[in-house]
């Protein structure tokens, strides 16, 4: 059990991001983790429908578009996870009675999709310039049949895993904002995965900083 660490599986695949790649949305980003990639677009703060208006904060809607077919119950559950994570980091009370719409389009799913959704969402929200109290990132961990932890698993690794966990980690205190799991696992395994995700999040936050720095490099 203790040898879990230090294995070569505890890596993040190559990852990348492009911001502001679409002309229509107020903010957009595509995020790539290995072959998994997601495109995100944000509109808002914009006019809100009367039925969805909230008097003291902005209404955030998250729509996940699968690649094939129409969104189903699974997407709805993922939307809930992404939405509530965004809601916790956005300062929604600064734009009462307005709407924010975040659309996430799956471009390719090769594992760790939910974490890719979160990362793309965060970059797109940042691109849109919406006020946020902190940033967040997603990390997926899988536990394979031998109890080894695999971070950022591919679809094949996910399929063979015994348990799969995705966490959203915040940038200020590196705590768990969102957790979504599949399969059964022990408490110790859970705590290990959380600790690993916290470590991995540092890499992703550094990447966020690097890419925003690069982006503003010409206007410094």
């Amino acid at each position, binding site marked *: 059990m203790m040898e879990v660490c230090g294995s070569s599986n505890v890596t993040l695949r190559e990852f990348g991001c492009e911001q502001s790649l679409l002309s229509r949305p107020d903010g957009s980003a595509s995020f790539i983790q290995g072959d998994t990639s997601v495109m995100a677009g944000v509109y808002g703060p914009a006019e809100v429908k009367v039925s969805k208006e909230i008097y003291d904060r902005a209404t955030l809607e998250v729509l996940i578009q699968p690649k094939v077919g129409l969104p*189903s119950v699974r997407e*709805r559950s993922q939307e809930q996870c992404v939405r509530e994570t965004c809601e916790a980091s956005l300062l929604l009370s600064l734009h009462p009675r307005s709407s924010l719409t975040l659309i996430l389009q799956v471009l390719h799913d090769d594992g760790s999709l939910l974490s890719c959704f979160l990362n793309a969402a965060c970059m797109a929200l940042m691109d849109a310039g919406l006020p946020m109290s902190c940033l967040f990132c997603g990390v997926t961990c899988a536990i394979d049949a031998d109890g080894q932890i695999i971070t950022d698993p591919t679809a094949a690794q996910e399929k063979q895993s015994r348990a799969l966990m995705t966490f959203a980690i915040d940038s200020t205190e590196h705590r768990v904002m969102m957790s979504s799991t599949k399969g059964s696992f022990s408490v110790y395994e859970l705590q290990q995965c959380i600790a690993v995700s916290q470590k991995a999040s540092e890499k992703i936050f550094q990447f966020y900083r690097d890419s925003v720095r690069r982006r503003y490099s010409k206007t410094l």
Partner: protein
Amino acid sequence: MPTDTKRVRGPEVSKSPSLYLSKPPVVLPSHGPRADGRQRDQVDVRPVFVRCGLVSQAKGSAYIEAGNTKLMCCVYGPRETERKDETDMKCGRLTTDMRFAPFSCPERGSWIQGAQEKDLSLMLHESLQPAVCLHKYPRSQIEVNVMVLENSGSVLAHAITCASLALADAGIEMYDLVLGCSIQQDGASYVVDPSYMEESCSSVSSENQGCLTVAFLPSLNQISGLQSDGEMTEKTLTAGVRTCIEGCYKLYPVIQQALASAVRKAAPPPSES
């Protein structure tokens, strides 16, 4: 490819095991005593269990159980209408929604509201509306939601009773309670408060056959709703209505009692919470 994307989906088609029974189901005899021991051709309604104010979130609620027929009703409102047109300015709006739980009938039902449910909702609406003092609630709507948990016959009749009880529990002003009762006519004989089996297994050949549901205001002695299916002679129909009214009067004291005890319970001001 229209599919229900808002629910967990199962296989495209599945069939009830009752279609493949090794032994054919027993057919109910059309004469003699009824399967549950009640009498034919008599105003023999099933024992009912009634209770008010079960649902904490609703303004008013009621639960009714008659034999195996179990249903509950919640009333929300009066609240501001969503749709605003001329008529609502002076008079309130009553909306009714009646649904069957998917597991409530011998055959599994769909989650999506079917024509039968819409039809029953409408019938329920028509039966209740005359009894509610809607002019007292201008610009507002009162929502009546009925859920059938188990269907063992005469659902509409019991839904009417249950809904009027829930309305009363919600403190909505009404002229009178509305009670429902139904009969199943089968040739010369009839059964009161038919069970699901009795409703569905009537013999095909004989004439003068049908189902009748009456909504009745007991203290005003008026009928607010009447629905009949099938073919009945005028004489049978009038006799049937009379039987139903008699059935309603049998229910009346029970309903009154339930309501009275709910009121009594609510009478002492609730402490803290």
